[in-house]
């Protein structure tokens, strides 16, 4: 099993969710996050006082999947969340040792 952690532009969340659901993914976790990358920040101006906003809002999804799906999931997220502009975000993949469904006690891929 792998955990895919993807950080991308907030307005793409619904499209990404729909695309992953259509791949058969049955659940994911979403957080609103802030951060910076190559896009850097933005500037806000209030009556001439400029403030650099160094952290921009993004969404982060975490989804645990079977190893076999990894390529398709990465490709889908990249295609759907991408705008080909700076600030599109990143995807990280991590190994997952175990998964347990709390209600039934199922483990491993059955718990996903």
């Amino acid at each position, binding site marked *: 099993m792998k955990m895919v952690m993807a950080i991308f532009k907030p307005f793409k969340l619904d499209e990404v969710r729909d695309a992953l659901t259509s791949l058969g993914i049955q659940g994911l976790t979403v957080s609103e996050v802030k951060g910076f990358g190559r896009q850097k920040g933005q500037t806000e*101006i209030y009556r*001439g*006082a400029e*403030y650099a906003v160094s952290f921009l809002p993004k969404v982060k999804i975490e989804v645990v999947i079977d190893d076999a799906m990894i390529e398709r999931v990465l490709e889908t997220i990249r295609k759907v969340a991408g705008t080909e502009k700076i600030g599109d975000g990143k995807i990280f993949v991590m190994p997952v040792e175990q998964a347990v469904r709390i209600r039934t006690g199922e483990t491993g891929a059955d718990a996903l």
Partner: protein
Amino acid sequence: MQRTFKSAVAGLGAASVLFMPVLALAADDKPKLDTGDTAWMLTSVALVLMMTIPGLALFYGGMVRKKNVLATVMQSFAITCLITILWMVIGYSLAFTPGSIVIGGMSRIFLAGMAIDAVNDLAKTIPESVFMCFQMTFAIITPALIAGAFAERMKFSAMMWFMGLWSLLVYAPIAHWVWGGGFLGDWGVLDFAGGTVVHINAGVAGLVCALVMGKRKGFGTDNMAPHNLVLSVIGASLLWVGWFGFNAGSAVSAGSSAGMAMAVTQIATAAAALSWMFAEWMLRGKPSVLGIVSGAVAGLVAITPASGFVNPTGGLVIGIAAGVICFWSATSLKKALGYDDSLDAFGVHGVGGFIGAILTGVFAVEAIGGDGKKGLIDGNAGQVLTQLWGCLVTMAWCAVVTFIILKVIDAMIGLRVTSEEEVEGLDINLHGETVH
């Protein structure tokens, strides 16, 4: 009151034609209250009070950081209460009763003698109680405006002492000089609704406060962006609506002067909001929300002294000038001089009031203001100089006395919160509360 008197006259008149002239003479001696004027002035009192709470409280409250919101709205509210009592005790008497050309008399201490049928000679068609309340709302908003200059760093106790002393030592005399029978009014200084008395006065006091108290901790490096501009938009909108009571109410009558004051107020405000917005759009790339509402307030300020004296074209020009110049003063001038006038009490009210006062001397026309009240475009260039003198006298008295009051309070109890309290926020430290 008037109706009762008339019917009594009618009843007696029917009984005896002979006594009629005697009774009519008695009626003439009594001031004639006008129900229309009284109704409008009652309304104006409510409108102008609404400018401070919640108008100004929200306008300022939205512009500070989240940790100082309650402390900021608290200032407006507490000032409203404090000045109300001081006005009742002595302020009104000092400002608006006959005395010398420098200060009013003591005849209305604790409002003594303000009987139910009393009338002030300055407003003969409305009850004195209404006139006193109307002027009270002006006395309230003026110090409340100053609070914008020292927002986010003054001790609440020091603020209360400062506002009380300032109201009696600066506001009351200057109101008397211009409106209460003092020497500035005698000189012919035109100030319809308070460009000099309210706005230059509050703005200059604010500048002195900002200079004496110093900058907020982290000014120029920390992010001091407004925490909720929607509050500021609501506040500015309430100020705008309330300002009809301020300007049209300053006609102290429900008639043509009030009507024209209302019209030029609306026009100047919109013009200033647009001119600030366009100036900012051209120079900074974006038309900001804070910009357009600040422009509106600048326009309201600038048309205040002019509102009963200029025609709609004059209002339009005053508005455009105020928007652009106040944009410059609140952004470039402040930056160049380096003082921390947190919410631009000086940049908007001081500068806007000055522009309005001077341009009143330019655009006043006799056709609007009546008997001899004319400015440069009506063939009386000297009025501009008269206006300038009015401004300079106000600025000088205000700056000197404000400075002395601040220094005395600083020596007695200190003006600023500790730097730890400032960083943590005034809400939790001064009031033991937080906003969300």
